[in-house]
């Protein structure tokens, strides 16, 4: 309420500006001052993000230095064309003679597609569970009741624990003699068997990030005016009808933004599977290897190929973000503007 009146006053003040020459000093050169103030941030981001992106792309087209068995010499670098990409995408390993063969099993190249599918699997399942749980949490947390502070406080706990600690905690919970097997009366190898290890990662990730999802959805729920629900109740709409006809459509923008954030976040997942399962599990020992884990493994075998891998990871995330904004209408800036009452 106070926020809205604040805007009104601010706008009123600005509208009066032309008549009051003294205030011009504040607005004169506003454009230039604005650009000047954002410059340090833009420069820093260019250095810490822009430079690595460009450098990564350049590196990805260079050969990694290595021993050439055909000539018996140690060769360094050189232009690689798309070789660093095709070896992962199509499993084409270069031979000594300059041709390509299908990469033999066990080579890191053969893990590319499995790790892409693992990453997508984690993303789809975790985000789906989080949407349902997060929505349920947000509905419970909405409104005023006693103990609301306690509830909000406990929801912030999983979020504030470092992921590395979360992974270690779930590693202990999922230990063979751990509480998960004890509570379920099972003897599951949670961090070694194929599907259990995947679900161990999913469960731990859901635990850590559902609160965040719930808070984002709650922010969307709180801007739905009570009067709409009152009107629907007067018109005889039941609880389920109110949920599907009012809550869901109105919370959709906030929900889409939350889903976008979480999707992009799981697509780059590293800490949790790396510490919880070491990217292992299953008969091939890579049931939980994600794209980020693969990149880090590849760094030790060659920077330039790793750069090609990380560029592909970046492009995948970029592509998914594009799909969301383009086809699912996840308008981050606009949604947040609405939640802040029309200001930035």
């Amino acid at each position, binding site marked *: 309420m106070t926020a809205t009146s604040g805007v009104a006053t601010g706008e009123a003040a600005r509208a009066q500006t032309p008549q009051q020459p003294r205030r011009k000093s504040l607005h004169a050169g506003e454009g230039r001052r604005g650009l000047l103030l954002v410059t340090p941030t833009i420069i820093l981001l260019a250095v*810490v993000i822009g430079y690595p992106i460009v450098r990564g792309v350049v590196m990805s087209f260079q050969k990694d230095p290595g021993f050439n068995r055909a000539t018996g010499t140690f060769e360094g670098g050189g232009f690689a064309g798309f070789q660093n990409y095709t070896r992962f995408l199509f499993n084409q390993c270069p031979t000594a003679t300059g041709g390509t063969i299908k990469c033999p099993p066990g080579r890191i190249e053969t893990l590319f597609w499995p790790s892409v599918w693992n990453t997508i699997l984690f993303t789809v399942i975790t985000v789906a569970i989080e949407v349902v749980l997060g929505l349920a949490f947000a509905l419970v947390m909405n409104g005023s009741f006693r103990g609301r502070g306690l509830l909000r406080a406990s929801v912030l706990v999983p979020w504030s624990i470092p992921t590395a600690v979360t992974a270690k*905690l779930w590693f202990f919970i999922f230990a063979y003699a751990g509480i998960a097997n004890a509570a379920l009366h099972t003897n599951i190898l949670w961090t070694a068997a194929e599907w259990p290890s995947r679900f161990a990662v999913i469960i731990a990730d859901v635990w850590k990030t559902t609160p965040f999802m719930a808070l984002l959805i709650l922010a969307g729920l709180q801007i739905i005016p009570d009067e709409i629900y009152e009107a629907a109740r007067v018109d005889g709409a039941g609880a389920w009808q109110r949920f599907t006809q009012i809550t869901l459509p109105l919370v959709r923008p906030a929900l889409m933004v939350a889903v976008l954030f979480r999707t992009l976040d799981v697509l780059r997942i590293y800490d949790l599977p790396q510490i919880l399962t070491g990217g292992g599990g299953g008969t091939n020992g890579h049931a939980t290897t994600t794209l980020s884990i693969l990149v880090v493994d590849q760094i030790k075998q060659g920077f330039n190929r790793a750069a090609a891998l990380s560029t592909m990871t970046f492009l995948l995330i970029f592509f998914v973000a594009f799909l969301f904004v383009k086809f699912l209408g996840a308008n981050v*800036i606009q949604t947040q503007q609405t939640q802040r009452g029309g200001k930035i």
Partner: protein
Amino acid sequence: MASTTAGTSTAGRSRTDAVPTYEKPRVTWQAVRKFIGIIAIVVFCLGPFYWMIVTSFRPVDYTFETTLWPTHFTLDNYAAAFSTKLGNHFGRALVNSFIIGVFTTIIAVICGIFCAYALARLQFRFKFLILGVILGASMFPGVALLTPLFQLFTNIGWMGTYQALIIPDISFALPLTVYTLTAFFAEMPWELEEAATVDGCTPGQAFRKIILPLAAPGLFTTAILAFIASWNEYLLASELSSDRTQPVTVAIAAFQGALPHQEPYTTVMAAGTIVTVPLVILVLLLQRRIVAGLTAGGVKG
């Protein structure tokens, strides 16, 4: 509160004449359902956290006991966590995390203040493009920074230095502070700034003397969020740090036990508790603002 009560009572009155006996059980059932929901959420969120704390007080021989309270309470694990006998340097790692976090936070908040002020307050060209770029930057995968930085830092001999850990952290801390501060600044009473300039302050003075003091709580919250993000970072630190500069997240993930291949569960739970409890207390004290900052900036988990 007021509107809800009023709403229920009105709805109740209109129905009282028809079926008076249904009114009370319906409300109670709703309250029960809400109560069950609250309990479920609290158990979901705090259960595993409680398990970590309670395990940190169990002796090694009782690691896997399933009682809700340790049968043999001990503080040995906390001593073991700080012991350097097995090659663990948890104490040093805590200091490292602190150094990295503080420097990252200072740089990100100072740059963030200027940028957020401009975004929230001024009209200028490319404003929405810049907002988009900063939001995009916060979604950027850390692993795409890792390869070029790994090579760069190796070439210029920065591996194992603090700056090699602080600089990459700015890549996510800065977008976070800009976004959160923009949200906080948008809520400020800007008429006061106008008034100050009318009274003869320069825009710079008006910002320093009027706006900054008022924005202090928001700044503090933003700083805490940036510090937590940096404190929790693992991917970049695990590859770019040396034994001397490794932060707690890396140290905890690599904790050595007394015997090879034997996971020192209780010691790790103690270390995890030490790393987490101060954060949790801080977050609980500032919860209202942190929730506001989180939802405004869409900070990653």
